[in-house]
C-alpha cells in the first residue's frame, strides 16, 4: 500500500454524522476520476458509515488502516 499516490487529504475527525460523509463527498466531487483521497477519521460510527456511503456512491476503497487514535482510508474517485 506504500506505492499509492495520494492526491488529496481531508481530516473529518472533528465532524459528526452526517457531516463526516458530506465533507468527504464534497471533496470527492471536486476531484477527477481515478484520483486518490486520504480521509482521516475516528473509529466507531464514522468508520462504520463513511466507507459504506463512499462505496454506495460508486467509489473504490483502496485501504483502511489504524494510525494512532484515528483511522485513515484511501478512496479512489469514481
Amino acid at each position: 500500500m506504500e506505492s499509492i499516490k495520494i492526491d488529496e487529504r481531508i481530516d473529518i475527525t472533528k465532524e459528526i454524522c452526517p457531516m463526516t460523509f458530506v465533507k468527504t463527498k464534497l471533496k470527492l466531487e471536486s476531484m477527477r476520476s481515478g484520483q486518490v483521497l486520504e480521509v482521516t477519521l475516528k473509529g466507531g460510527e464514522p468508520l462504520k458509515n463513511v466507507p459504506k456511503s463512499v462505496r454506495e456512491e460508486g467509489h473504490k476503497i483502496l485501504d483502511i488502516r489504524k494510525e494512532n487514535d484515528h483511522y485513515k482510508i484511501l478512496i479512489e474517485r469514481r
Partner: protein
Amino acid sequence: MKLTEEQIYRYSRNILLPEVGGSGQEKLLSSKVFCVGVGGLGSPVALYLVAAGVGTIGIADADQVDISNLQRQVIHFTDDIGKPKTESAKEKLKRLNPDVNVIVYKEAITKKNIRDIIKDYDIVLDGSDNFPTRYLVNDACYFEKKTLISGAILQFEGQVSVFKPFAGGPCYRCLYPEIPPLGMIPSCQEAGILGAVAGIIGTIQAVEALKEILQIGRSLVGRLLVFNALNMSFTDIKVKKDPNCPLCGENPSIRDLSDYDYSQREECEFDLASLIGNK
C-alpha cells in the same frame, strides 16, 4: 461557485442525496423561479424552494392577507392581516433562508407586464386562484419558452402538471383550450377547500421544480396528476399535445398575448337552456 461552511451545513441533507451532491446544490443556488401567487399553493411552494436554497425567487400577488386565508396559506400569520401578501411572504422567506434573493411584484400580473417579468426566470409556478391569470400565465410561458408547473385545488381535490411545450410536451390549453365561463366552475371562495390539500399540491409543485432544476427523475410533463383527499388517491392521466391547440397547435389562433381576451365571460346560453330544461 464555492459553498461556504455554513451552506454545507444548511444544505447537508440535500448534498447527501446521490442525485444532488455539491454540484446539484450549486445548481439550486444559481436557479431562478417565479411564483404566481403566494396563497394556498404559493405558500408551500415558496417555503420549500427557499428552504432548499433556490437562489432567486420572484413572488407576485396583488392581494392583502385576510383572516380567511390563514386556514391554508401557511406563510402568513395572524399578525400579518392587512399586509400585502408579498411583503408578509418576503419577511418569512428571508428569516427562513437569508441566502435567497426574494424579488417582490406587488402589482397584478397583466398581458402588458407578464412576459417582461418571467423572462428573467428559469421556471414559473402557477398558484393563481382564477382562470384569466391561469391562461395568461400559460400563454406567456409558451411564448417565453419557460417551464410551467401548474397546480390547482378545490374542496378535497387537486391537480398538478408540468408544461414544456417548447420541448415537445403539451401546454395547459391542450388540456383545457378555453377559459370556462363564469359560474361554470366554482372558486374556493364559493365551494371551500381543505387547507392541507393546498399543502399537498403546492408541495408536489415544489418537488417538480426542484427536479427540473436538478434535471433528475421523471417529471409530470405529459401527465396530469389528480389527487382526491377523500379517497386518498392519486391518479395519473396522460395528456397529449393537441394538434388543434389554439396556442401550441399546428394552426394557432393565439400568436401573441394581444390576440386573446383574458376576461372571463358570463355563463353561455347553452348552459342556461339546459338549466331551464332541468326544471
